[in-house]
């Protein structure tokens, strides 16, 4: 898909996500908006997927380690045809099947998450399993700031380079705000790219909202052999809805009010 088309997919993804969270009356809009461009590239350009066979053995795998951003994932899956968009609008409801955090019972969801820090390891297992069986699929893991504060993640950060896993890519959504406060106040992680490099990763720093850069980084990752790739995506929490951008409140879990929905829709061109 060309860049303009991907930009349009990202816009639609943001729009549907805000509507879904509005319907749910709770959710985490800020961290959904920060990953919308990344998801658009992954789901409409990078990954090999077949909505008719959501558990296909050779499909590419995606792990949303920052599981609280699942409204955006559900919307991406709906846009790709894994289930109707109206289902994505029923998330977090008793009569729906779209859980408040990712659940493998949902078509297209490859891993459970929501307890931070477990996603990278699951992606590593998928990558190890592919290598063991000579399968060519790739494993994509999207982590957030909170994931990198969990020790489990760093166990995985050690293993993947040691095992020379080149079929796994980590994309770090560095949106700089966490649940209660800015990352810099809770547990500043310093130069994450330098740390990842020290652990042995092929590190690529990008603007996480620039479609061309995201595509280029994923291509570089694909061409890097014998080493896993860590894409440090500099992002803005709430990106695309001006009143949500860089505002801690919109980490969530929050209900979106009618007038806020109207404002967001108008900004997103709905």
């Amino acid at each position, binding site marked *: 898909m060309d860049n303009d088309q991907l930009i349009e997919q990202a816009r639609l993804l943001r729009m549907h996500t805000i509507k879904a969270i509005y319907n749910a009356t709770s959710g985490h809009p800020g961290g959904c908006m920060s990953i919308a461009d990344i998801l658009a590239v992954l789901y409409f350009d990078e990954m090999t997927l077949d909505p008719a066979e959501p558990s296909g*053995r050779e499909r590419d*795998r995606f*792990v949303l380690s920052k599981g609280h951003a699942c409204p955006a994932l559900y919307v991406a899956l709906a846009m790709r045809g894994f289930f109707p968009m109206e289902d994505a609008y029923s998330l977090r409801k008793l009569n729906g099947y779209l859980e408040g955090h990712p*659940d*493998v*019972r949902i078509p297209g969801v*490859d*891993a*459970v998450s*929501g*307890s931070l*820090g*477990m*996603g990278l*390891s*699951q*992606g*590593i*297992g*998928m*990558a*190890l*399993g*592919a290598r*063991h*069986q000579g*399968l060519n699929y790739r*494993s994509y893991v999207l982590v957030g700031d909170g994931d990198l504060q969990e*020790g*489990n993640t760093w*166990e*995985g950060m*050690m*293993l993947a380079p040691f095992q020379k896993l080149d079929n796994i890519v980590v994309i770090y959504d560095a949106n700089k705000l966490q649940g209660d406060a800015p990352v810099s106040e809770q547990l500043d992680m310093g130069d994450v790219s330098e740390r990842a490099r020290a652990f042995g990763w092929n590190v690529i720093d990008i603007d996480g909202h620039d479609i061309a850069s995201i595509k280029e980084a994923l291509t570089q990752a694909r061409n890097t052999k014998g080493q896993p790739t860590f894409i440090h995506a500099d992002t803005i929490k709430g990106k695309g809805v001006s009143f949500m951008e860089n505002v801690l409140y919109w980490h969530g879990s929050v209900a979106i009010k009618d007038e806020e929905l109207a404002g967001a829709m108008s900004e997103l061109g709905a």
Partner: protein
Amino acid sequence: MAEELEYWAKGEDVSLRDAFGRVLLHAGAMRDDWVLLDADVAGGTGAKPFTQDMPERVMQFGIAEQNMMAAASGVADSGLIPVVSTFAAFGTMRAHEQFRTAVCYGQRNVKLCCSHHGLDVGPDGATAQALEDLATMRAIPDVTVISPADANEFMAAFHAVLDHIGPVYMRIGRSATPVLYDGPTSFTIGKADRLREGDDVTIIATGVMVARSLQAAETLKAEGINARVVNMATIKPLDNAEVIAAARETGAIVTAEDHSIIGGLGGAVAECLAAHQPALVEFVGIKDEFGKSGEHDELPALFGIDAAGVVAACKRAIARK
């Protein structure tokens, strides 16, 4: 081609760790749909013969059990069956959330096989003596929990576990334990095995306590007490019918496990009886305390989980009738 599985002779003393090593090699030769995940303790769990002979079937994680457990979920997603092996304190406690959420909630076909549980650990002491593993594993939905009584039963159970679809937690005993079953041994998940008939009291035992319970039944017989002995190798799903029958037919139950008396086999049996057939129960196990260093054959007497402890519990149970 797979060779015939070689069983030990009844009456020999064999560590279940040796059975783990032997059955891994056997299952490794028989089928290539599974891999072993290890966290630098193959020498301790008994997996060493397999890691040496079939290194291409081993995924090594170093001492990082959380990563290993969550990765097992991903390995299962790839279509392989991960057999995750470490010490019980690390596999069931350090990596408990990864097992609960990434594996069990994730509907992954992962087999967690842990050694070093109970006082059976011996000199390593309380840190390594997992006394809570049956309780914590049992509380997780959809998981099967198995604690074999001897080396032959362990090997049969392991094959049944590989055939079973779904997450399983399996205990691997450490110390040399009497072989109770003739080979070839069969194993059905969820089916208790009545090893001795009796109508005065029923001892429901698991793991290393099965042999001690048989010993206890012999002692009781000399005193004119007929104790039924049931090997409850599957803690979950529990064989409710066997438990209910024991309560109806003998009127007194003693549970025996190398585990805390809270939440393990005793808890499972008590839950079953409370719901279906109220009966008096005496619990043989570790009484809400930590273990300590000592030899595996010294500690049971100190903590009251030797054959004498079972005998005493049976007498208490009968006296309460």
